């Protein structure tokens, strides 16, 4: 969903969070080809960029997609969707 940061590892992490919902560092490191340390570093880059946010749950840091970003992305898609609706109305007007 957010290819913004251009790094394949970070993209994988973000994709997992999109698909699986909030995950701890431990879970995220489980599936990855890179060290837990590297995963943590990537997560902090993503959090600094506002793509994800981390919260402390008990003894673990859990990360999830930043809801505001999700809303912005959806909003953008809704714009384009509305533009298509309008364009198709004009097509209909031409051919019918």
């Amino acid at each position: 969903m957010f290819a913004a940061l251009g790094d394949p590892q970070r993209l994988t992490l973000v994709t997992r969070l999109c698909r699986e919902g909030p995950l701890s560092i431990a879970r995220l490191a489980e599936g990855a080809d890179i060290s837990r340390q590297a995963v943590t570093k990537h997560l902090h880059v993503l959090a600094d960029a506002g793509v994800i946010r981390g919260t402390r749950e008990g003894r673990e840091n859990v990360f999830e997609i930043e809801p505001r970003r999700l809303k912005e992305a959806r909003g953008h898609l809704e714009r384009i969707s509305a533009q298509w609706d309008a364009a198709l109305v004009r097509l209909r007007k031409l051919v019918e």
Partner: protein
Amino acid sequence: MPSDSVTDRIQKSILLRAPLPRVWRAISDAREFGTWFGVAFDGPFAPGARLTGKIVPTKVDPEVAELQAPHEGAKFEIFVDRIEPERLIAFRWHPFAVDPKVDYSAEPTTLVVFELEKLGEGTRLTVTESGFDAIPIARRADAFKANEGGWAHQTRLVEKYLSRAA
């Protein structure tokens, strides 16, 4: 990069009360396409072709044309992906890149596929635009803010048009 996610694509499917060849012409003939879409293309659609064009007000609705006026003259670029006569035409472009002040050329393109299917006396048209996931958030947020006013106008217009036509 391809994606299954629901944020990657938009799909619209409508039934047009017009014969398939008529609808095909409206989407595959660059001049006709431009008439309803609102772009003046510099050449015909052919597989693999890269075309440029300018945003021009749509000819089918004077009220909408008026709203499109601020974008008039904006450069428009399109890459024809493939054409299957009377069935499918696909393009790549920068989604609704209508701000004359912005250079969109460095951004990823989306793929737009128009598919036609005869349905009784009419034609089903399905448009699928995909590839949104590859577009950077920052650009999307900016585009969102920039377009918000204009397109809110646009959708109100659509509602007005539909209620008049009903």
